């Protein structure tokens, strides 16, 4: 029982990332009707927001201390980050919490990037065939990841979580197991809760605001909403920005779990597409559900007991499920009728 619980927990953080990326993909698909192969790149850009903010915060002031010397006889260099020099203890805390702090900065950055992307490129592709949309966003994804590679290099850049959030939580005690059975890294739990909050916010935004209502109406019937005199294009631009923010935040928070490198977006993109298809194209609930479901199934497939029976299953389980779902339930788990039937 506790082994099962542990695997469920293991799948939740990855599932959270899948769910967030897939949610953004589905929103873009449902509103703009665009298949965005560059969405993984947005996830990666979010992660590199965190990297650059950490790098900016740790820019340091180098002073020479004449009283001490190094082994080579030169004066000892004392390096102190500017934020510490200027803000004292607050600066230290700021540096320590660079990943959560990055969230605040990533939101406007990603929103802007998303809007630029939509206005600058995607909007010219609304009327083009899906194949063209796939191809142009695929090209964009390559360009974005190569730019990141030329700036930050090809190696993963580790981003530590704040020290207070690095430990393990003995999760089992809270629900009545013996101590030491279900021990779980705290950051992954935070990531899961964070993804739930973001998903909740997106749903609340779409459900309870007038803006969201118009967007949902636009998803159902774009033309009629336009006929009612509402500038649906401008709203959809903002929706694209929001989807970019969601992917970016997923990336920022994922950095302590997986050190970001330039191709992390591509790795997640393929899986996220599978998640969207399994959930049902255009169904937001389906994307979230299948994101978590596939995350959990993947973690079960990585158990040694399962791998002994079916070797290699952990590598292919997600694709196998996608194939099975598409053949049995072509619209996906919660797909709506009439969305991408052809």
């Amino acid at each position: 029982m506790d082994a099962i619980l542990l695997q469920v927990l293991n799948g939740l953080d990855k599932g959270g990332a899948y769910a967030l990326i897939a949610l953004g993909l589905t929103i873009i698909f449902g509103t703009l009707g665009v298949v965005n192969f560059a969405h993984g790149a947005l996830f990666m850009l979010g992660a590199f927001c965190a990297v650059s903010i950490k790098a900016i915060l740790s820019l340091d002031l180098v002073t020479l201390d004449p009283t001490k010397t190094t082994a080579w006889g030169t004066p000892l260099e004392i390096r102190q980050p500017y934020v510490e020099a200027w803000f004292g203890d607050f600066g230290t805390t700021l540096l320590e919490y660079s990943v959560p702090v990055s969230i605040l900065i990533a939101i406007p950055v990603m929103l802007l990037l998303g809007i630029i992307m939509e206005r600058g490129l995607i909007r010219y592709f609304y009327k083009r065939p899906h194949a063209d949309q796939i191809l142009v966003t695929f090209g964009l994804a390559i360009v974005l990841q190569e730019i990141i590679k030329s700036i930050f290099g090809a190696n993963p850049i580790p981003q530590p979580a704040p020290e207070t959030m690095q430990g393990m939580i003995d999760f089992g005690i809270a629900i009545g197991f013996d101590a030491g059975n279900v021990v779980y890294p705290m950051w992954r739990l935070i990531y899961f809760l964070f993804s739930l909050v973001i998903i909740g916010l997106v749903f609340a935004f779409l459900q309870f605001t007038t803006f969201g209502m118009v967007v949902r109406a636009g998803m159902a019937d774009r033309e009629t909403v336009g006929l009612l005199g509402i500038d649906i294009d401008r709203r959809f631009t903002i929706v694209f920005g929001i989807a970019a923010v969601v992917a970016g935040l997923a990336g920022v928070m994922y950095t302590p779990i997986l050190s970001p490198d330039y191709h992390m977006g591509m790795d997640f993109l393929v899986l996220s597409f599978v998640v969207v298809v399994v959930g049902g194209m255009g169904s937001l609930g389906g994307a979230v559900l299948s994101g978590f479901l596939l995350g959990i199934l993947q973690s079960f497939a990585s158990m040694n007991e399962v791998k002994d029976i079916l070797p290699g299953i952990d590598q292919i389980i997600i694709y196998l499920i996608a194939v099975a779902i598409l053949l049995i339930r072509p619209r996906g788990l919660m797909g709506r009728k009439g969305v991408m039937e052809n």
Partner: protein
Amino acid sequence: MSLIDMHKKDWLLFIGFAAVTLLAPIIFTPIGAGYPDLLQKFAIYGIFALGFNILFGLTGYLSFGHAAFLGVGSYTAVWTFKMLSMNPIPAIIFATIVGGLFSALIGFISLRRTGIYFSILTLAFAQMSYNMAYSVLTPITNGETGLQLAQSDPRVLDVAFGRDYGAVLPSSDLFGIDMTGYPGFYFCGVVLIICFFIALRIFRSPFGMMLRAVKSNQNRMNYTGLNTRPYALTAFIISGMYAGLAGGLLAVTDPLAGAERMQWTASGEVVLMTILGGAGTLLGPVIGAGVIKYFENIFSAFNETILMQAYSMLPETLQHIMVNVSSLFVGEGWHLTLGALFMLIVIFLPGGLMEGLKRLRNLFAKPSGGEGPGNSADAVPQPANPA
């Protein structure tokens, strides 16, 4: 329908194509591409793109998993070398057959869906094969190291015919002609010419017409009571066989097979070759493959020293700026150029280079009466309703 029954223009096209291929070492020398390694790549990726075009160009089904067939072809060819003979002919025959069988399996499942679902299904299958090649199938694929020849391989046929390679690691040879350098290129070139002929026949056949009908409006085809799936599946299998053959030839020229050939970026590359040249045209994909492999070769060889020389006529500060800017795009940054090229082509020239040529031709032909039907010997009518 006999083989001879071909339009005069098509014969000219075919003969021209064959002549260019056979004279390639001379033709491509002025642009610095006249050496065998690169020419082999032109021919091999030309075959790959030709086959991909039979699926994507004619039926409009965008597969994102064709690299899987290429990889399977390579593995099959290397295994044939190991087990049977170092002669390339059995290797490419088996590579083609296995590529075809594998694509029949994947196509049968994937073609149940169309549009983006089809793309994602093929992508899922290719990624699955790639992951399996790295993990479970290590006994067959030799995992990350890649499948290599060994001195102790059985090579049953070679032994039966008394060929002994001695203590060196054998390389593939056609009845004693070593398959490296120019002989290797000519082997690939002849296969390319045969493949081009087959593609030409498919394009001009009623079957090819049917595939185009699938692209322009599948619903209407279904309403007329025709089941389109067998046609699409046949096209898928043919293109899978081309990919397997190309993979086999890769192994012939360099007897090594690795899983990275199956990665989905490799599938993306063949898509790019096809649209760069012009999807749905006969010559386009081969030209696209050539252009991409050429620039890949030229661009990735550039380094800062060469760039410094190239900009040597500029003032020094400007020289440094230009070198810094352009070094983003060459050498290691070649992929950036590739991605940018991808976007530019899709945005501005969806019909690829062939459409560009046609536009140029129309521009000059306009004064004398616009475009005639004979002008577009190998152009496909634009699909009326692509969505």
